[in-house]
């Protein structure tokens, strides 16, 4: 990997130049202390010292509502796919979200390529940034996602006077050449970056999963019948907020929308959640996961077992968004994993 350096004074012009050239989204402060990924109109809006965003940048690659097809009905029926995408740069992505995107890449490319996602992904450059502040519920160290070695085009590390920029792809390299005043990073700067990165995992020391990463699937398998799921279900609203904010959740529903002229319309998908009551319900009325406890167990097993067994990494990146979003405060994977381990 090559390392470049951008002096801090040269950084806003880099972002402004990108904004001139393409659609750019970055981290902005939405209300005091709450951040979101949103379109940038100027570099001054970008906030790189955030803790966590309300939603992950997944929303640009896998939009909450996405048209899949357009169709015409009536005498001559026809349908065609909608595969829209445009060049997009996402700036300020934290390592856990970079890992989450890399996982979605695998899943949407696996077996049956989902072009709706993959075309957007192919047209997107990811400019990541190393974490400077941890959020209350994040447990990235336990999920191997406090730092990241791949999955980005460029990764920024703030070393004081300048950013060290790790160049992950040729596309990232080209962006730097075209839009930034950068130079090769010095040995000292690269060393400083490594020092900073070494300390990042320890920001999450307060939130630690007591089971090693590789042993989570066994922990869950051993406790599939735990009473904990029923206990959590007592308080669960089945609201699906934990699914909604999760950077790795990708389940969706598909619906049709007819135009008012009743002769054309579109088929779209929208985010769905396995905690919602009707998620596994079929037309005959049979609901294959009727109990909240089963749905809670299913979500936790997806996060700590099923995805790992298929792809070799967990479907949880430790961002802590679910724990923040859950009103009755029962969604926190750290607490669930640790309580299962302790048998409480």
């Amino acid at each position, binding site marked *: 990997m090559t390392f470049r350096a951008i002096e801090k004074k040269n950084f806003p012009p880099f972002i402004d130049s990108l904004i001139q050239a393409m659609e750019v989204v970055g981290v902005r402060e939405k209300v005091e202390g709450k951040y979101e990924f949103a379109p940038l109109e100027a570099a001054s809006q970008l906030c790189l010292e955030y803790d966590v965003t309300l939603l992950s940048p997944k929303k640009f690659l896998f939009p909450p509502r996405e048209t899949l*097809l357009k169709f015409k009905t009536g005498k001559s*029926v026809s349908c065609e796919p909608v595969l829209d995408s445009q060049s997009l740069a996402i700036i300020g992505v934290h390592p856990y979200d970079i890992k989450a995107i890399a996982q979605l*890449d695998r899943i949407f490319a696996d077996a049956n390529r989902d072009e709706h996602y993959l075309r957007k992904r*192919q047209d997107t450059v990811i400019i990541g940034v190393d974490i400077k502040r941890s959020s209350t519920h994040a447990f990235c160290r336990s999920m191997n996602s406090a730092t990241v070695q791949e999955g980005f085009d460029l990764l920024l590390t703030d070393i004081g006077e300048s950013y060290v920029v790790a160049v992950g792809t040729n596309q990232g390299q080209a962006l730097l050449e075209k839009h930034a005043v950068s130079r090769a990073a010095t040995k000292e700067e690269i060393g400083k970056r490594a020092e900073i990165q070494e300390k990042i995992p320890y920001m999450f020391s307060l939130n630690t999963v007591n089971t090693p990463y590789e042993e989570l699937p066994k922990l869950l398998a051993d406790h599939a019948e735990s009473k904990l799921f029923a206990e959590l279900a007592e308080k669960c609203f089945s609201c699906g907020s934990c699914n909604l904010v999760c950077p790795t959740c990708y389940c969706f529903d598909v619906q049709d929308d007819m135009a008012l002229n009743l002769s054309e319309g579109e088929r779209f*998908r929208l985010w769905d959640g396995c905690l919602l009551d009707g998620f596994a319900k079929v037309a005959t009325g049979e609901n294959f996961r009727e109990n909240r406890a089963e749905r809670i167990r299913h979500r936790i097993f997806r996060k700590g077992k099923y995805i790992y067994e298929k792809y070799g990494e967990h479907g949880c990146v430790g961002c802590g968004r679910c724990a923040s979003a859950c009103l009755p405060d029962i969604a926190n994977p750290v607490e669930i994993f640790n309580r299962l381990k302790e048998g409480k």
Partner: protein
Amino acid sequence: MTAAQVQMGSREPTSIYLPQLAKIVRTEQLTKMEKLFEIKLGSGQELGHQPGQFVEVSLFGIGEAPISVSSSPTKKGSFELAVRAVGNVTKALHTLDRGATLGIRGPFGRGFPVEELRGKDILFVAGGIGLVPVRSLINYVLDNRSAFGRVLVLFGAKTPAEQLFLDELSKWRMSKEMEYWETVDRADGQWKGNVGVITTLFPKITVDPKKTVAVIVGPPIMYRFAILEAQVKGIPDDQIIVSLERRMKCGVGKCGHCQIHHVYVCQDGPVFSYAKIKHLKEAI
């Protein structure tokens, strides 16, 4: 695969969610609730399915629904779906007749393991509209009769009026190529046959458990009892085959609705060996 490789992957020309257009060439009201649709793909090609696979049927403006293919692939030129009117799509489908256009995606999933069934005795156990997917295999077996051993069919319906495929049933009753047993939960005045749930048919048959494969398809409640009966006959769990119903929105292993633990029913099923899923709570 790394994210970089994903990005380098070539662009597919189209969407996995794009149906191909197809025409209804014949319909037949099977019962009050079920209607048969014979369908031809607009491309003129065969559907190319295996017995037990399903398609996603599109009615534009209404939506998609997963429907088992009911005809055997040995029947060329068209395929058949037998559909119960229960949801938005299926109710709208029932209003359509010959000449109407709809969308088809698939075939999807794993069908019945026809190669493994060769040379075996097959005990079919179908409850209600469980006969719909099972019929694709029964007719496949009858069309390749010499490749298989004994063919036993146990069919249960709630009432005589809810029996499907009446013409075929009357042929099966007379057939020398198969042993056909039927029952209804509740008889009407005309019914002279067996009355009782499907498990009441099991004492009437004898099988050689070593060479018999049981193919069991029916409503969720039926599996527990029918599987037990097959086990009582001595049929081992890896020779018991079931087909599971689940909610399926995409058919291609993405949308998540059909998942039972780590298993995606739309990709890994809907046909499973009981031995493979018996440890999955929520499966049966």
